[in-house]
């Protein structure tokens, strides 16, 4: 045990193995915790020292991969992004993300989540298929055009927004904030020409119009995205398109990549190594 671990935290972890257990149950573990220790580190401590059968997902430990999403004290968090002392409690209740079926313990089945993501065609669609298959140039995009959707490109697909969404809890086929935000992200991209394919998906039943604008998705997002805003912007696009007005966005043209590269800025004098 490293120094500085002074507090003993009770981890109340939901356990469930569909092959053995009829219903999920809770198991308690005592974890020594110190300053800066994350919930994920606590779970790793349990797995390494107390119960090796505890199952959870994790990978990067720096809130980039989005693997360790779970319900901590009944609120969706990334376990690697949540320090134990943030919760101001000696007792943490940890459950898998809701609105998804459980594979085992804290591992939710994210296949429906990724299917919904795939359904909105999350890639650039262009009419010039030849250029897409064999690119000869770059698509022009100004910084201000990038800024219209930039925040939504930071989505790590952790599923916390879907877990927080009250509509997803009652309406299983609801596309969910993640997929809808990504739908807006690609529709707003001036390099894309796939609005005609995506907007009917977003405008159908169990999609944007079922959003109650609770805003829970935006509050839960660990990357600070605002999926609720994307859904509202998507609604505006749908209404504009239905009424036949709104900005007609021309797809960006292609230009050859710059042949000249800027020379590197030389090191300042005081950092250059003495060659004598």
């Amino acid at each position, binding site marked *: 045990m490293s120094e500085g671990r002074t507090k003993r935290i009770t981890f109340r972890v939901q356990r469930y193995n569909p092959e053995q257990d009829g219903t999920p149950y809770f198991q308690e573990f005592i974890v020594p915790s110190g300053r800066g220790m994350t919930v994920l580190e606590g779970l790793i401590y349990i797995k390494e020292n107390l119960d090796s059968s505890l199952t959870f997902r994790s990978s990067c430990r720096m809130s980039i991969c989005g693997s360790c999403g779970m319900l901590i004290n009944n609120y969706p968090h990334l376990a690697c992004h949540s320090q134990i002392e943030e919760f101001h409690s000696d007792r943490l209740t940890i459950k898998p993300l809701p609105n998804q079926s459980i594979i085992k313990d804290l591992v939710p089945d994210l296949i429906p989540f990724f299917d919904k993501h795939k359904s909105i065609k999350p890639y650039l669609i262009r009419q010039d298929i030849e250029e897409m298959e064999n690119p000869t140039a770059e698509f022009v995009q100004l910084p201000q055009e990038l800024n219209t959707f930039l925040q939504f490109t930071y989505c790590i697909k952790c599923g916390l927004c879907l877990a927080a969404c009250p509509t997803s809890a009652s309406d299983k086929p609801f596309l969910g904030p993640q997929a809808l935000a990504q739908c807006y992200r690609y529709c707003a991209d001036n390099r894309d020409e796939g609005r005609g394919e995506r907007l009917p998906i977003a405008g159908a039943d169990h999609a944007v119009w*079922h959003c109650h604008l609770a805003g829970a998705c935006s509050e839960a997002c660990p990357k600070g995205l605002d999926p609720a805003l994307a859904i509202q912007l998507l609604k505006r696009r749908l209404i504009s*398109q239905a009424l036949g007005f709104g900005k007609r966005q021309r797809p960006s043209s292609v230009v050859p990549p710059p042949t000249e590269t800027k020379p590197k800025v030389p090191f300042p004098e005081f950092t250059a190594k003495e060659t004598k």
Partner: protein
Amino acid sequence: MGTAYLRLVQLVTGVLVAVLLSIHIVLTHLDAIFGFFGVDVAEPTAWASMIERASQGVFVGLYVALLACGLYHAIYGLRNIILEVTPSIKTGRIVTWALIVIGVVVFIWGTYVPVALFTS
């Protein structure tokens, strides 16, 4: 795109319900306010007053519009709530048609009296 039109109509009918209902409330239940400004609206909820209003095209139009907007707004909202908890496509279709039939029947029933009074 069909859903976008239906949703847009629901937003518009929501605003119209608020406006038309306000006119109805002010005219029939807040006659004291008119009295305060010196306008005498003699017992607006009395039978004779209602019959008199029913003979005026403006009021008939107002009430028919209020009923149509209120029905559409309520029934489309109800459909959305039901579809949210019954995600099956088949159930959705049954619910949609059942609500359309209910809406049409209630609209005909609700407009029959004012239209009959107006035309008689």
